[in-house]
């Protein structure tokens, strides 16, 4: 059997897939299904893996996932916590930012909010 290092160094990349998936909520349905299915990746393994690794986040937190699909149908993925924008909008209780950034104020947040957000990244 090939060693891990050999496999890692020789695998040609087939595609890069980007997705937003709720923490702990990957399931075999769109968008995860079609995105992984088109490259014949092991869909359920991804779901199980992603869900296990995002247990520490609140269930609805949208995580951005970047999957590197290799030509031999193996894959690697990285998960990033949600964008700061998402945290700010969630704290402020608004759905979208200002319609005219720099002119119209959409909402204000206290330092306490920021502190709470920062704790998530600690």
């Amino acid at each position, binding site marked *: 059997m090939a060693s*891990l290092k050999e*496999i*890692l160094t020789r695998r*040609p*990349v*087939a*595609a*890069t*897939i*980007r*997705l*937003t998936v*709720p923490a*702990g*909520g990957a*399931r*075999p*349905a*769109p*968008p*995860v*299904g*079609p*995105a*992984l*299915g*088109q490259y*014949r*990746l*092991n*869909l*359920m*393994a991804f*779901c*199980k*893996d992603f*869900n*296990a*690794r995002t*247990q520490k986040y609140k*269930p*609805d937190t949208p995580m*951005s996932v*970047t999957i*590197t*699909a290799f030509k*031999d*149908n*193996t*894959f*690697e*993925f*990285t*998960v*990033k*916590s949600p*964008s*700061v*924008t998402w945290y700010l909008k969630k704290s402020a209780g608004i759905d979208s930012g200002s319609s005219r950034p720099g002119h119209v104020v959409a909402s204000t947040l206290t330092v306490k909010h920021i502190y709470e957000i920062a704790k998530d*990244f600690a």
Partner: protein
Amino acid sequence: MKCLVSSLRSHFFKHFSCTTTTTFCFFFSARHIHHRLTPRTCLPALFPPLSPSLTKTRTQWGLNSITATKFWTTAFSDTSSSTFPYLSVHIQCRKDVADMLSEALLCFGASSTSMDEQDNYENDDEICISSTFSDCQDVHECISHAANSIGLKETPSYKVKQGDQSDWIMKTQESFHPVEITEGLWVVPEWRIPPDLQATNIILNPGLTFGTGEHPTTKLCLLLLHSLIKGGELFLDYGTGSGVLAIAAIKFGAALSVGLDVDPLAIRSAQKNASLNNIGAEKLQLLLVPTKDNCPITDEVIFGGVEGQNLSGTRVISETEKYDVVIANILLNPLLDLADHIVSFAKPGAVVGVSGIISEQIPYIVERYSQFLEGISVSKMDDWACISGTKKRNAIAS
């Protein structure tokens, strides 16, 4: 790594990477009892009933769209989130802006983007980003906002079409292969021929439920079960998914297997799999349990598999301290939340096994379960773990 370097969104990074080193193949494995607290984790079993051979299935799907539609209707008929409509959008753009545009598209509402890797392309060549959107999304607005946000002067050209469900499901399905768990024990997809007819072969049509034999946690649980079942035991599979563990227990010699799940489609899939293995309802009982968020299904208890007998679900579920072996292969949070519930089914002195967790989560599980279990041991495969122990005779419910 390229994908990290290229990510231009202002993220704080908390990333981890996962490597699937095994040559990709087989089918799926993870199983789930969908978290009682989080309806989102429900995993519908999407697969329609399959004909005995893949080739035949393909033919049917290829030539007869009416049959395919019928399959789909059947497969989806009992879930409200039924058909999961989505739009498939192909966007043309220059290669040098493709990474930025992909990130931007996700910020402005795309559900996914993917790009094929092309080695011999120059930066100003046009490439295609395949993306998906949910059905209700304004695709044009998203693309124009995304293009604008990265400074493109024109909205890239794009084509929209309705997403094709059968396509990705067929492709996913092609990856299922027989898996040898240990010597003489195989998990074999329904449409493939068992490599060793003399072995214990668990025949599965896993559909899109968790528990397909390939995943390390399923393997760990099967190995644990294999070592525990000597004959005549009562076994509880908490979060049965495809029913793989419950079926395996019967094949190993257990007197009775009971599989619980919160997903009606998992129960359905497990029932089909039970009948594929010629296991009747007297041996294998399947029970749909209500979630906290989703109580209306309490009356609609699906039961007893193959013959579709209706027995009272509550009778089984209230039988605590009944089982000789209890295994739950789910996820960290439900394992922590439901620990006393899971353990309550086991007889004092019975073995309780829990899995679905990665190495770094072991301490939490050990801490939580050590109040109920003694002689805790941990088995590992790749980065995954299965923890088992014997139920204390004087366990105090938390």
